[in-house]
């Protein structure tokens, strides 16, 4: 069944690309074919195939993978699970408040004794490391009764995050049947973690189970647009993804559970030969680990129906672009692994998808460049191919209109269908009702359309940097980013404005007929610093209900607990560790793990 779905989906993308090529060729060749027209058709075919592939994921999720909602099982598991929290120069107060809330959530179910939390620090900043120790002690003394909480800080962060996890496995792995891998900003309901363990127990062949984390705590207009998009569209897209990937599903690096022995025997990652960015340690290790588990016969699955799994996202375009830079390098590095021995064909295809996710941007940019300069290279038509009446080239305007409509349909169509489905299934109630949800959908489409030309250039730059050998490394995430000032935005994106001006000016000179269409791309680029700064604020729209999500309207218990713990800790940062501090000093032993 999975093979049939994959075939249908790939055929859809190919047929759509072929149709776009025909329409494009009809339009571009109307006044005579030249080499640039062939380039345009080729670029159009590739980029349309990519758009169609994305659309098919969304449409698939509306028809495949639906099932009744299963209530999570909360009886205590019979095996032990380690919850891994790798951290790297994070804010320890915030991160440990997440851990504290999850510990209390498990205690409330009476199952905390079967879970240990391991905070795996790769922090390099000495001041942050000192804060980590202070706040870990507080976390341990206030919440460590009845639940093991460990802390380890590596002197050298060999292998970065994947190496951090591998170090834990090599040190303590044989104690635990399962590992739940989190990020510093992850948050999960205790019931969700218990249900994940039970699902692993249900299927002895299951090597890794990935949840679909919902984005929470976004404050800015940009961040809340992403949060809304993740909450509203992603469950449908993920169902489509799950239906296509079957037993060779994704691993997104966090908010997932894995079978310890399966992971240990399958996912040891050596550095690749050569230097970064294509050699060295594997940056986007999660996709590789999923492929290696599948190679060894383990099932990797995403279960979008599992609720109670949360993460935080970037709150402004610049942080998004910084994260994207890392992911771009990681995904392009997968090109080294396309020929890795023994991989399943679908795993290789997933690597290609990941590469294409970033290659698409420069391909679109090339298409736009070709569109601007093509009119200047137009061949003067031969009006008298034969003696007699003149023959005027027929401008295939209807082809252009059909093409534009088709591309817009691929971009926006799935989102509209998801909205209609949400009306029919009453899912919009969680988003403030049909009208409020429609407001969110329309605003998100407009926002992403306006920012797309800016993102295209950030991604194109990322690809060019990687291909020219520039290593972006693994910059620490700025999880508490506030408003981006206009000067900061200008410093980061002035070059985008310049490119926008050049594009518009060139189009004015060479492609006057297309100026309106070019303006839709160059306009946002010229205004990039202003748009980046503007969208990093706008939190007041939250109070008016724009982009409302279910989690925002009704925070879950673990979300409420985390906020309460964080507020208390922030209000009393200098507090002593309480009565247990004296106990610790007298007895030399705090609490048994």
């Amino acid at each position, binding site marked *: 069944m999975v093979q049939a779905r994959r075939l249908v989906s790939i055929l859809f993308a190919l047929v759509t690309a072929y149709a776009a090529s025909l329409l494009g060729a009809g339009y571009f060749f109307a006044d005579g074919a030249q080499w640039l027209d062939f380039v345009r058709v080729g670029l159009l075919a590739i980029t349309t195939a990519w758009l169609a592939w994305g659309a098919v994921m969304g449409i698939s999720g509306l028809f495949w993978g639906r099932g009744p909602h299963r209530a999570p099982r909360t009886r205590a598991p019979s095996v032990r699970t380690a919850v891994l929290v790798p951290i790297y120069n994070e804010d320890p107060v915030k991160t440990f408040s997440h851990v504290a809330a999850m510990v209390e959530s498990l205690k409330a179910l009476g199952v905390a004794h079967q879970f240990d939390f*391991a905070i795996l620090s790769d922090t390099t900043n000495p001041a942050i490391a000192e804060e980590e*120790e*202070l706040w*870990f*002690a507080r976390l*341990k*003394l206030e919440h460590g009764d009845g639940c093991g*909480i*460990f*802390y*380890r800080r590596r002197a050298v962060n060999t292998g970065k995050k994947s190496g951090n996890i*591998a170090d*834990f*496995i*090599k*040190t*303590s*792995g*044989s*104690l635990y049947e399962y590992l739940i891998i989190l990020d510093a900003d992850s948050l999960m309901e205790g019931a969700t973690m218990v249900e994940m363990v039970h699902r692993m127990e249900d299927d002895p062949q299951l090597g890794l189970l990935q949840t679909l984390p919902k984005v929470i705590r976004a404050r800015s207009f940009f961040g809340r647009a992403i949060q809304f998009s993740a909450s509203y569209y992603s469950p449908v897209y993920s169902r489509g993804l799950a239906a296509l990937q079957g037993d060779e599903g994704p691993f997104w690096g966090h908010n997932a559970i894995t079978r*310890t*022995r399966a992971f*240990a*025997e*399958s*996912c*040891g*990652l*050596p550095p*690749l*030969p050569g230097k970064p960015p294509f050699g060295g340690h594997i940056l986007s290790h999660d996709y*590789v680990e999923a492929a*290696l588990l599948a190679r060894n016969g383990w099932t990797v699955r995403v279960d979008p129906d599992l609720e109670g799994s949360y993460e935080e996202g970037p709150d402004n375009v610049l942080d998004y672009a910084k994260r994207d830079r890392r992911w771009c390098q990681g995904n392009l590095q997968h090109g*080294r*692994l396309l*020929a*890795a*021995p*023994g991989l399943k064909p679908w795993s290789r295809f997933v690597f290609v998808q990941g590469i294409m996710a970033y290659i698409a941007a420069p391909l679109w940019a090339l298409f736009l460049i070709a569109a601007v300069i093509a009119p200047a290279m137009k061949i003067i038509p031969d009006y008298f191919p034969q003696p007699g009446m003149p023959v005027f080239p027929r401008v295939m305007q209807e082809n252009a209109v059909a093409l534009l409509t088709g591309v817009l349909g691929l971009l926006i169509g799935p989102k509209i269908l998801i909205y209609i489905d949400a009306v029919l299934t009453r899912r919009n109630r969680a988003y403030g009702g049909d009208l409020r949800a429609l407001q969110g959908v329309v605003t998100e489409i407009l926002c992403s359309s306006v920012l797309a030309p800016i993102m295209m250039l950030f991604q194109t730059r990322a690809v060019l940097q990687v291909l020219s050998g520039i290593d972006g490394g693994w910059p620490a995430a700025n999880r508490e980013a506030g408003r981006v000032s206009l000067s900061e935005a200008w410093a980061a994106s002035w070059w985008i404005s310049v490119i926008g001006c050049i594009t518009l000016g060139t189009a004015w000179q060479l492609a006057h007929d297309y100026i309106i269409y070019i303006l839709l791309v160059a306009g946002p680029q010229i205004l990039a610093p202003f748009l980046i700064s503007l969208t990093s604020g706008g939190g007041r729209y939250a109070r008016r209900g724009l982009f409302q999500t279910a989690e925002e309207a009704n925070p879950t218990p673990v979300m409420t607990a985390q906020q309460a713990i964080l507020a208390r800790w922030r209000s009393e940062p*200098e507090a*002593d*560790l309480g009565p247990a*501090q004296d106990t*610790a*000093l007298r007895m*030399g*032993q*705090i*609490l048994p*793990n």
Partner: protein
Amino acid sequence: MVSENKRAAVRRVIEQSGLPSAPLIMPDQVLVRERAFLRFKPLAHWLAVR
């Protein structure tokens, strides 16, 4: 300002909270195909010097 008592207590907590020792082997996986012709060293040498 962190008191000396608090600092000492933090030290004790950190010392007592290290990871338990229960090693599990995690071997490196083969990710890159060995180029078959390089197994033949004379050929490889010839290719390198020509």
